[in-house]
């Protein structure tokens, strides 16, 4: 379903990676690894279509994502490095606003259930600026509970989370894969998911591919 061929990433005057290719079918997950600055986040942004690749192509269901545009974006759920949480809004408002902007039906009951699952019940009416780092991350990840779109692209989903929350997210990803979804995520930790097959890709392994231009 998701296919990348010969991707090259240039940031400023450095080539972060080149010749990155992979293919991901339904129910599969790609775990991106690599040290800091190896271009993991850049690759994720490329997969979303935010950053154009210096060369190479990304295809979704056999068609280039640049051509697909909105059709691709309606199958994509991206969770970036930043939480995309509004400090002034409560977790509940954030969750509902995100769903509304993505044109997804999410009623308050379902949203509350999602917040309960990520352990934010009792804080759903507190402005996010009063939450801890980990709680903010949980508020952001609450989106995933009812997320039905096919491709999840998650940047460091486990960062700032405690053990229980990591297991919870891994469970959500596992359930998503079991439904036939796809996931691409970056991580520094090896976290087992309950279902689906995991492919691994390590960026910046060979010093030759990463060089000054």
């Amino acid at each position, binding site marked *: 379903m998701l296919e990348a061929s010969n991707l090259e990433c240039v940031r400023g005057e450095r080539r972060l990676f080149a010749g990155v290719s992979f293919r991901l079918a339904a129910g599969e997950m790609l775990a991106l690894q690599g040290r800091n600055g190896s271009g993991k986040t850049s690759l994720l942004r490329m997969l*979303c*279509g*935010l*950053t*154009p690749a210096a060369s190479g192509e990304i295809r979704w269901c056999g068609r280039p994502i640049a051509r697909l545009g*909105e*059709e691709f*974006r*309606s199958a*994509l759920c*991206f969770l*970036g*490095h*930043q*939480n*995309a*949480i*509004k*400090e*002034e*809004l409560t977790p509940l*408002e954030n969750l509902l*606003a*995100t769903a*509304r*902007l*993505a*044109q997804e039906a999410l009623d308050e009951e379902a949203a509350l259930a999602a917040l309960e699952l990520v352990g934010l019940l009792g804080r759903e009416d507190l*402005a996010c600026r009063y939450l801890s780092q980990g709680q903010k991350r949980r508020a952001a990840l609450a989106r995933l509970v009812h997320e039905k779109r096919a491709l999840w692209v998650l940047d460091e989903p486990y960062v700032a989370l405690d053990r229980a929350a990591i297991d919870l997210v891994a469970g959500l990803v596992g359930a998503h894969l079991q439904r036939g979804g796809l996931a691409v995520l970056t991580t520094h930790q090896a976290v087992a998911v309950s279902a689906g097959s995991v492919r691994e890709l390590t960026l910046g392994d060979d010093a030759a591919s990463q060089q000054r231009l």
Partner: protein
Amino acid sequence: MLSLIRAVIGRDLRLAMRRQADIVAATFFFIIVVSLFPLGVGPEPEQLRRMAPGVLWVAALLATMLSLPRLFADDHRDGTLEQLALAPQPLALIVLGKVIAHWLFAGLPLVLLAPVLGIQFDLAEDALAVLTLSLLIGTPALSGIGAIGAALTLGVRGGGVLLSLLVLPLYIPVLIFGAGAVDATVTGLGAQAHLSLLGALALGGVFFAPWPTAAALRVALE
């Protein structure tokens, strides 16, 4: 489509209400700038009446400039802008929603204050009415055109100053027709033509500006 625009407006307005200090600051800036002019040029009613349209309109431009940098900067910082750019609808529609919201909390207060401030300048009733009407028609154009500048300077060094450099020249037609409408009323020429042209600018500003703004936002997100 409409529900998306409504969702964006609703979210931005709610955020603005939680951060009222910004709106209040821009509004008071408008009031203070307008009130400073009589102190600077003297209290002769005749002179004040002649200056009023220009002063109020220039102050409105500057007050709008003040709130523009935050139009996209907050969303950019916390990652919401990426989410908006990845929404399965054209980004321009979302921008349109944000422009309307910006007008509601940055432009509308100026419109509502204008008659009160116009009294300070000894404007007659018909001139006050036209002043308010011209601001009502013209300020949406300021929000629309300003959004282009805000998107172009997003995350750029010295963005605020650069923003005024880019946007103020583009505001000139709005200023001319807006202040001209009041002027024409005062001199008894009738404001009809000015107001229609202003309306055309506002329509253009609100409905065409979101497209270059969306393009600039995508460039900023790369």
